[in-house]
């Protein structure tokens, strides 16, 4: 009898082996009460007589998959499977071999996917211990590593290797026209070089590193020839760089598409906040007392933040108009102050870059410091200004989520503006403040005295920025985070506990990645090997950040939403891309290439290699390309794209309406069910009363 309740859960599928005689009524009653408290009435009814259908092309047969996902107890599933296996049709040996092969291929595919995806296990471990927000940072980092590596392969294949192959031979594509003075360029160091100078040169890209494959100046403007195959090196260089930008754009947008799909499917993260937190907030994989406590604090914090937002919204709605005016004017003031801060940072960087350029001839350590002055000022600005902006945000009194977004946007703007300031300063000096017909630029339309090869110079600046960024990250890790953790762990004082262990703040780390990538994009035209350097830098950064995460950091109390954050990171990356593209387009079209170096010497601007090479193509190709560029082709193409876009917009709106309709229908079904249940209760009550009377009468 004790085992009866257990058997009841499985219902009518087990034999009742008890031989105890029960009164007929009670046995019937027991059989009627099929479900025990533990089993849910939501178990789907299993159709015993269904034969297994043909296998689909995945190699999984449908009933097996259904069985796995059916919420039945394990013992029941086993029984069902036993019955199913008896139904398995007899197949010929060829068929069964084919089926076995598809299954093993499927398994192989799964294994390969797990193996080839870089750092899968590390990412799982990070996500398990620190949550989705931190994991999204590392996923973003992995995406950038892969992007940079593929870009490097592209550049190596089309620019580096042909240059190495066709180094010595090849006919020059343009004749030297222009004053002799412009063509003076001698980057090789003269005389005996002190040993430590090699180290300084490595850090600043000068000296032995300047005239090498690393920078633009080393590449020739020749047409590499080999039997009946000619390779136009300057054209290849240009097209590779342009294609690299387009390729990066496509990758970013493709990734944004997948991230956006998740965000749209969940209907926006602001809806159904509380229910999400309550039911999906707890991470069942949390191990250990500390992680659990942290998770609980985390959930507590999130709920409090949401409640706080509600409260602030209510307060904001309850403000009198006088208070509203005060608040808004305060916000405008703070906005102006933050713009002022960013402008001040811009000006400081401008001054620093000017100073650095003036003192560029210094030797030794002092010279190195002057070389790195712009980078130092940029890093200092990137550290100080967000701190000040955080204080400003306290006065503005936005809702917490808006505050976070505002802070991030300000930090992004600051970073990109810093880079822009550096580029602006360089531009001023290269083109003599835009007046290319006066002063030092009169002779060659660029400042040939200070910059005999200005592209290499710009490339060196970008190289220095990348390197400095990397060194700062490693230095902060070694000199700040490890000591901080050692102090906090081993020194039991109130101050140490208040400071606490480092928190891994996701947004600022992501911004630093975006900044690094923007620098690489800006410098790609002038320093073709920069993507390779960046790949190595990001790989080392991954391991460094992982180490610091596990040893030095405690999980952040304030979590960053992981689903919308992936999309946000990519949007910010896109801003960086736009800045880099603007710089590239300007350099291609407006500034005269150096006459002493590089693959585009003696041309009036970099882009003019395209028309020049165009006329060396065959006539049919020329006519074809003219046709594509003409109005007879582009206007119909444009009209067609508009039509296709309208179609997709219409499709999207129809799907949206469908979703809303289905949601409403779901609500209605619920109400119907409620109504029917009430009806059943009514009816059964009505039926029971006369029946009961009948039984009473019988007795």
């Amino acid at each position, binding site marked *: 009898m004790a085992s009866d*309740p*257990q058997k009841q*859960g*499985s219902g009518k599928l087990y034999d009742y082996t008890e031989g105890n005689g029960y009164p007929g009524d009670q046995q019937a009653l027991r059989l009627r009460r099929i479900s025990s*408290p*533990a*089993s*849910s*009435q*939501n178990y789907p009814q299993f159709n015993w007589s269904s034969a297994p259908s043909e296998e689909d092309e995945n190699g999984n047969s449908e009933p*097996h998959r259904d069985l*796995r*996902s*059916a*919420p039945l*107890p*394990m*013992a029941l599933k*086993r029984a069902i*499977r036993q019955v199913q296996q008896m139904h398995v049709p007899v197949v010929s040996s060829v068929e069964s071999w084919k089926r076995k092969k598809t*299954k093993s291929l499927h398994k192989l595919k799964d294994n390969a996917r797990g193996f080839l995806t870089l750092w899968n296990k590390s990412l799982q471990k990070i*996500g*398990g211990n620190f949550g*989705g927000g931190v994991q999204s940072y590392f996923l973003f980092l992995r995406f950038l590593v892969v992007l940079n590596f593929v870009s490097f392969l592209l550049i190596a294949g089309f620019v580096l290797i042909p240059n190495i192959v066709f180094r010595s031979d090849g006919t020059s594509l343009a004749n030297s026209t222009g004053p002799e003075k412009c063509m003076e360029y001698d980057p090789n160091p003269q005389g005996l070089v002190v040993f430590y100078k090699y180290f300084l040169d490595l850090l600043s890209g000068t000296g032995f590193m300047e005239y090498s494959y690393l920078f633009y100046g080393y590449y020739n403007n020749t047409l590499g020839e080999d039997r009946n195959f000619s390779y136009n090196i300057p054209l290849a260089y240009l097209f590779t760089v342009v294609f690299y930008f387009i390729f990066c754009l496509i990758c970013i947008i493709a990734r944004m598409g997948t991230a956006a799909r998740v965000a749209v*499917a*969940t*209907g926006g993260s602001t*809806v*159904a*906040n*509380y*229910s*999400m937190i*309550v*039911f*999906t907030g*707890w*991470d*069942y*994989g*949390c191990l*250990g*007392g500390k*992680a*659990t*406590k942290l998770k*609980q604090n985390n*959930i*507590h914090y999130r*709920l409090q933040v949401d*409640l706080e937002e509600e409260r602030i919204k209510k307060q904001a709605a309850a403000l009198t108009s006088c208070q509203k005016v005060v608040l808004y004017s305060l916000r405008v003031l703070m906005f102006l102050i933050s713009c002022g801060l960013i402008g001040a940072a811009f000006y400081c960087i401008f001054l620093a870059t000017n100073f650095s350029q003036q003192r560029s001839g210094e030797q030794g350590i002092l010279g190195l410091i002057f070389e790195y002055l712009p980078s130092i000022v940029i890093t200092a600005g990137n550290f100080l200004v967000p701190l000040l902006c955080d204080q400003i945000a306290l006065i503005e009194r936005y809702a917490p989520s808006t505050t976070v977004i505002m802070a991030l946007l300000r930090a992004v703007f600051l970073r990109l503006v810093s880079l822009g300031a550096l580029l602006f300063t360089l531009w001023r000096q290269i083109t003599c403040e835009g007046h290319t017909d006066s002063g030092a630029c009169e002779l060659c339309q660029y400042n040939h005295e200070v910059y005999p090869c200005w592209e290499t110079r710009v490339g060196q600046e970008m190289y220095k920025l990348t390197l400095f960024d990397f060194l700062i990250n490693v230095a902060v890790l070694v000199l700040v985070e490890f000591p901080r953790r050692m102090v906090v762990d081993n020194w039991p004082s109130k101050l140490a506990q208040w400071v606490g262990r480092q928190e891994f703040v996701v947004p600022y780390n992501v911004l630093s990645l975006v900044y690094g990538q923007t620098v690489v994009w800006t410098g790609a035209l002038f320093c073709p090997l920069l993507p390779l350097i960046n790949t190595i830098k990001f790989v080392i950064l991954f391991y460094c950040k992982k180490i610091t995460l596990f040893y030095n950091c405690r999980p952040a109390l304030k979590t960053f939403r*992981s*689903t919308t954050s992936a999309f946000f990171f990519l949007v910010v990356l896109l801003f960086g891309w736009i800045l880099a593209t603007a710089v590239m387009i300007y350099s291609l079209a407006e500034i005269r290439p150096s006459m002493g170096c590089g693959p585009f010497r003696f041309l009036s601007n970099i882009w003019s290699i395209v028309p020049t090479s165009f006329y060396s193509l065959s006539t049919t190709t020329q006519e074809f390309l003219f046709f594509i560029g003409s109005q007879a082709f582009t206007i119909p193409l444009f009209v067609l794209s508009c039509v296709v876009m309208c179609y997709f917009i219409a499709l999207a709106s129809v799907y949206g309406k469908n979703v809303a309709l289905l949601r409403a229908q*779901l*609500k209605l*079904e*619920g*109400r119907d*069910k*409620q109504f029917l249940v009430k009806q059943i209760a009514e009816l059964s009550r009505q039926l029971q009363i006369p029946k009961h009377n009948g039984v009473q009468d019988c007795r």
Partner: protein
Amino acid sequence: MGNKQTIFTDEQLDAYQVRLLHGRYHELAPHLVPMDYTNDPDCKLPLALIVNMPELKENPFRNRIVEAFSEDGAGNLSFNEFVDMFSVLSEMAPRELKAIYAFKIYDFNVDNYLCKEDLEKTLNKLTKEELTPEEVELVCEKTIEEADLDGDNKLSFTDFENMISRAPDFLSTFHIRI
């Protein structure tokens, strides 16, 4: 598992993982659990032993999890139910299955509805009772308001499943690694 009487093939459950689980089940109570399952012994471990596993020890819902997977509702798990529990909580279980069992776990009074008392208990376990009663009240109200579709002031399984389908993190949080 000692011999091949089991009807699971490699595609259903990785035999290695079943052996692993059996090892864990055995070490909870070495004198109770037989090593040989040939004769399909009827051996159940009580709740108190199972919630002492390191994966479950700190989980505030440990009692409910074990009760949801036990047939008698009191938390005594046979080996089949033990495997069931960890397979639903693994990363390969489909979303619908996880949603069904998540609903059962949060349904404290086992009436197939998540009523306000269930939510209050869930919330208290989540935040270790650090929220004030007014805050608890407010959050429960808002949760029901957001997820209740049929307007009966409690969440049925359909409401729950609909809400879960819009939660992208559900699959990754409702997951225990063993």
